[in-house]
């Protein structure tokens, strides 16, 4: 079905993501689940049948979480928008293959994660595979944590510094940290998204936090910090 010359009107409302064919859903709260699920399932079915307006509606529902995931992974608005665009193009190309084995939002997150990882792989030619990304080199891993507790981070972390610290993480650590601590996914959900074990997810998250701690403790102290 061709798209009309005029741009499709986006729905004004941007509902929170809802789960369709719920296996699990991102833990950001889904109110009125049954009614919303029914509506979203209908929108999905119409989009799968080629209804462009319905696809526009799905974009409206999911754009914020997908964009936010991309933004946290690359730390740059323009790149995040490009990746969001590519994720939704992939979504459009593959939408008829979605069978509801997992939540639609989870499936879309998986697509977006693959788009982000492909992008990071292009930027770092020495990284050949997802496995390599998930297992950083020895010098990228956090050091042992037996230093004196001379700096307390509690209450002293600002957004810009933390974003810089996240940008400095190896991609595998960054991905698990973003998915768990920022996006609110549980370890079993991350394991499914990344096709790894829950133990691996827990380990990557812990190493990510240790690396962030190293970075933050090495920052010059700002006036007014504890």
């Amino acid at each position, binding site marked *: 079905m061709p798209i009309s010359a005029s741009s499709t009107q986006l729905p004004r409302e941007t509902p929170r993501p809802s789960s369709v064919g719920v296996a699990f859903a991102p833990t950001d709260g889904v109110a009125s689940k049954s009614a919303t699920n029914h509506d979203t399932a209908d929108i999905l079915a119409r989009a799968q049948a080629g209804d462009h307006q319905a696809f526009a509606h799905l974009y409206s529902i999911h754009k914020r979480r997908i964009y936010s995931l991309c933004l946290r992974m690359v730390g740059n608005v323009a790149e995040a928008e490009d990746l969001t665009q590519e994720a939704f193009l992939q979504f459009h190309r593959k939408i008829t293959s979605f069978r509801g084995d997992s939540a639609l939002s989870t499936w879309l997150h998986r697509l977006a994660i693959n788009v982000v990882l492909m992008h990071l792989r292009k930027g770092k030619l020495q990284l050949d595979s997802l496995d390599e990304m998930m297992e950083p080199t020895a010098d990228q891993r956090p050091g042992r944590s037996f230093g004196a507790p001379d700096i*307390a981070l509690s209450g002293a972390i600002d957004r810009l510094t933390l974003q810089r610290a996240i940008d400095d993480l190896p991609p595998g650590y960054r991905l698990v940290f973003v998915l768990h601590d920022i996006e609110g996914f549980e370890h079993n959900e991350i394991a499914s998204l990344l096709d790894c074990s829950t133990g691996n997810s827990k380990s990557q998250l812990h190493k990510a936090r240790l690396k962030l701690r190293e970075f933050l403790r090495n920052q010059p102290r700002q006036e007014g910090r504890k």
Partner: protein
Amino acid sequence: MNNSPNNMSCAEFQAQLPDLFGCGEMIGDHPHLRRCNLCRALLADLNAIAEAARDLFPVEEPPHADALWEHIESAIAHEGVV
């Protein structure tokens, strides 16, 4: 290696941290922390980082959401399949 929580070394305690965090237990009550300032400080820092991540990065609207949609729409039209 001593596996008793009461006699754990810092290395042993820290090796268990990923699982302790992941299982939702009250790690702060762990016997090792009652006598170890270093690990207590480590735990406080890791909790502060997780808390900051949760609080400082809300889900964001793409700044040019409508223009972004127009690009997506245009690319879909270019591919010729809807």
